[in-house]
């Protein structure tokens, strides 16, 4: 088992190591979810167009 306290302390470099990993998580998650959000938005809009066409017909 690793000691959690010394793991979190990162040999005294916690103030640099953890923000670096935090930035990684935040930026990659932002890229991922922004892509997902945009695809869902365009799919909804396409459905709305198809719907209004059916209503017209």
């Amino acid at each position, binding site marked *: 088992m690793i000691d959690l306290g010394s793991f979190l302390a990162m040999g005294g470099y916690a103030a*640099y*190591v953890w923000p*670096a990993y935090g930035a990684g998580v935040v930026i990659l998650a932002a890229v991922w979810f922004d*892509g*997902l959000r*945009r*695809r869902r938005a*365009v799919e909804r809009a396409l459905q709305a*167009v198809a719907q209004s066409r059916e209503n017209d017909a």
Partner: protein
Amino acid sequence: MHRFANPGRFLRLANRIQPWLKALTALGFLLGLYLALIGSPPDYQQGETVRIMYIHVPSAWMALLAYLILGLASASALIWRHPLADIAAEAISPIGAAFTLLALITGSLWGKPMWGTYWVWDARLTSFLLLFFLYLGHMALLGAFDDRGRGQRSAAVLALVGLINLPIIKYSVDWWNTLHQPASIARMDGPSIDPSMLWPLFTMAAAFHVFLLAVLIERMRTLLLEAKLRNQRLAAFDRVQTEPF
């Protein structure tokens, strides 16, 4: 390769491989994070800060790879006018900008304890900052014109001009005196890093590659759907215009 350059075929292929890419990304990051944070030793000089490298180096590699993709896509868009090439260029530049930003942030978080400063205007860091602005410029130009085609062409020209920055970044550590250390992986005499640190690095790099491919395909798919939506709205508008009241 040309067979996949058809949008319909691209969409079908993308739908098939996307679940696999997502699973591989998750698996790669789990294994990579374990190796980077727990399964590897501290460096005898850098101590625990060496763990920052397992994010910094792969994100810098992805920043360069994304620009290479942007350059190739822009060249084929200008030469062959292929619609998928424009879409690939538009899809890759925000991804490249994100990786460039991550490399800059993690690099500066490593620089503070190791060099004693977050930032220095040396050749490597400055050329990498320029890479970030090239991505931002590309994204801005794409949206700067009412005529989408004009925006795409100007953005492609900017991307091609910016290609000159890639060899400058790569060789900046050899051509100029810089604080940044020279290459330690891509060397003529083989990597100068201990295997215990190469494994977390390569695993993270593999995860970053699959992630890049997954988000690139996702964004290209979205852009194709957005083009379809524009066409349908235009068609609906034409119908309204031509119908007698």
